[in-house]
């Protein structure tokens, strides 16, 4: 292809990537090393507010932001280097926790406990999603042609549901005397509170994520199964390979590129776990890195947001995703070079 033609074809998508991916990333990077604050003044203000039994007036010393000519709050932006990153990862507490060898102390630092949950969540759900997806794919592949359509449709349903809605509906099954909690209580004849300790909430979140994402793995594996070379399978049967051996030595190696693909997608998605924390109101017990970013972005009672720390936390999340993806990607790269 001529260079010019190539440029014309690639140009628009490069432009889009710069505009929608590179530029926002750079701006977040910039935000994370700067802090923008209103300029405050101290003034005496007389305030009267309604009480139940008549007005209450008082003179108070107030910290008030200065306004510019156009009536907007006057702000100043200063370069703070890595201060916001330090505020997020709290290196002094980290050092003291490591020095004391105290896991509990480490888990009391918000960033590190969020990282702990995020990593466990990502790594624990990965094999479950792959395994469940493959099982459904094999099962569907072996069902009668007549009912395949409906079975595929039903298996896909969890993936179609909006994540927050899905999480909320599962939460309602379990919260308080939700129908499933009530059922469990009746069956086990004891009082159960699913939202009163960390491990039950975590368990529900793992289960929910697998339930939600396995259909995607199923669709990909199912497509892959249609391309399995039947001659190889028949040859394996003639050689006396059992069902398990056929799966292990013929089908799975054939599906390996898809496994890598699903692993990459899953690592990327699961590391950004957020809907589960919202849906299961888990924030009292476990938080994720994305939740931490969100918490910094929430307005406090004064309408202010911690933009700088939020940006730092977002950049750290991105670095985490890059590191996680690095391992499988390197493997793919090596295989490419080898072949």
């Amino acid at each position, binding site marked *: 292809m001529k260079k010019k033609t190539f440029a014309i074809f690639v140009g628009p998508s490069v432009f889009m990537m710069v505009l929608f991916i590179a530029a926002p990333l750079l701006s977040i990077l910039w935000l994370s090393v700067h802090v923008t604050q209103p300029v405050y003044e101290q003034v005496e203000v007389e305030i*009267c*507010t*309604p*009480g139940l039994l008549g007005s209450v007036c008082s003179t108070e010393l107030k910290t008030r932001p200065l306004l510019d000519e156009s009536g*907007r709050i006057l702000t100043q932006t200063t370069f703070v280097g890595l201060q916001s990153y330090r505020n997020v990862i709290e290196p002094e507490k980290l050092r003291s926790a490591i020095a004391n060898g105290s896991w509990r102390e480490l*888990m009391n630092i918000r960033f590190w406990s969020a990282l702990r949950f995020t990593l466990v969540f990502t790594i624990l759900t990965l094999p479950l999603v792959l395994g469940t997806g493959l099982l459904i794919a094999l099962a569907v592949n072996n069902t009668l042609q007549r009912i395949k359509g409906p079975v595929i449709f039903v298996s896909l349903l969890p993936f179609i549901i909006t994540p927050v809605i899905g999480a909320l509906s599962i939460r309602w099954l379990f919260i308080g005397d939700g129908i499933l909690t009530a059922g469990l209580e009746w069956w086990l004849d004891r009082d159960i509170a699913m*939202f009163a300790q960390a491990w039950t909430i975590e368990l529900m979140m793992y289960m929910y994520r697998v339930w939600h994402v396995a259909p995607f793995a199923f669709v990909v594996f199912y497509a892959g199964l249609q391309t399995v070379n039947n001659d190889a399978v028949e040859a394996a049967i003639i050689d006396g390979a059992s069902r398990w051996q056929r799966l292990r030595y013929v089908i799975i190696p054939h599906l390996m590129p898809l496994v890598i693909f699903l692993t990459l997608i899953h690592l990327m998605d699961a590391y950004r776990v957020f809907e589960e924390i919202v849906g299961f*109101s888990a*924030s009292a017990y476990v938080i994720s890195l994305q939740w931490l970013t969100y918490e910094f972005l929430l307005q406090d009672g*004064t309408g202010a947001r911690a933009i700088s720390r939020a940006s730092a936390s977002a950049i750290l999340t991105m670095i985490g995703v890059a590191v996680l993806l690095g391992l499988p990607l390197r493997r793919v790269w090596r295989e490419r070079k080898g072949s």
Partner: protein
Amino acid sequence: MKPRHILLAGAMAMSASMAFADCTNTVPVKTISNAFPAYEIMTGVMAGCGNVESELDKDHRLKIVDAFSANPSLYSMTSLTNSTSVPMIDADLLRPLDDLIATHGSSLNPNQFIEIDGKTMAIAAFANTQHLMYREDIFSDLGIAVPTTWDEYIAAAEKIPAAGVVDYPIGHYMKDGWNLAFVFVNHFLGEGGEFFNADWTPSINNEKGVTVLERMAKLATLMDPEYLVSDTTFVTKQMQQGKIAMANLWASRAGAVNDPAESSVSGKVVMAAGLRGSERIASTIWWDGWAIAKNISDEEAAAAMKLIVASMAEDVIQANNDDAIWLAKGFVPGAAAKGAFDTAAGDAVPYPMNKYIGSMHSALGSGLAAFMTGDKDAAATLADIEAAYVSDAKEKGLLK
């Protein structure tokens, strides 16, 4: 949520427009407000006047600063409280109302006005606070005296399981985040605590802070173990469904717990004053009302003002007497308002109206759960919250 409320407002408007007819409005007006019965009533009346579009949203406070910064503002008016007024006044987004009150507001009570340096910035509709609500039937069965302090409350709660009527003795809005922090704020004030030193550095890591945390841990043992997901609405439902015997709850829910349409225990719940800490009543007084946007036309502002006045007309208040502690004319404090009035007549203080408490409230909101779940002890929790407050206030330019 939203469409349902607009429908509800519409339905109420139809009945309202018959009763309160003389407020015809021709200028399009948009309102945003919190979502609970008192606001449903007021926006219902406004809708009856015509050309009013109302949005009722529990998270309205996250929208109003940005929405009112636009020119023209996205809403003509908003509901406002002690706490939400701070960023709105700081950013100069509200219209001084004195001239509009002079022309249209003769029917308002002077103690409804929020005045800052002599300028009226908002008009309160009702007051709100938190006070004791208890099941009279259970109390008289067991012969328990009505508690007035938190210690008596806990002692009473320990006797309640004997009645065998309720699942848990008490309920409390201890949902992780704003609610959990609010419980701490109230109790800390009740112990006579000062959140800040003179230079606005924090001072919660002390004996009073520890007392409050210990009490919160004690309370937690007396309620549904899922308390960290329980907000005000959740506690109201627990009360209505007869699952708890008492709660220290927002006065704005006093009507609902005895509403025969919603509550299975209507008529059995009695209101009493907020409970005392060692210094004063551990409740805060709030005002709730309306403010008008600065960035709208004079015509729209005048229309908004007339609607505000119409929404608190004497006949509206009389028709909905028990749904709020109205500050407007026509209100007759009934049994539902007794708890709130006794709280205000006591020594409960208003929720502070400043920026520092906003930052502190957020730091408490994300730091307290670790203590409640047993991950941290009281001193470590308070020290970490102080550190979180300092780093937050520094980033926001409030502390040097």
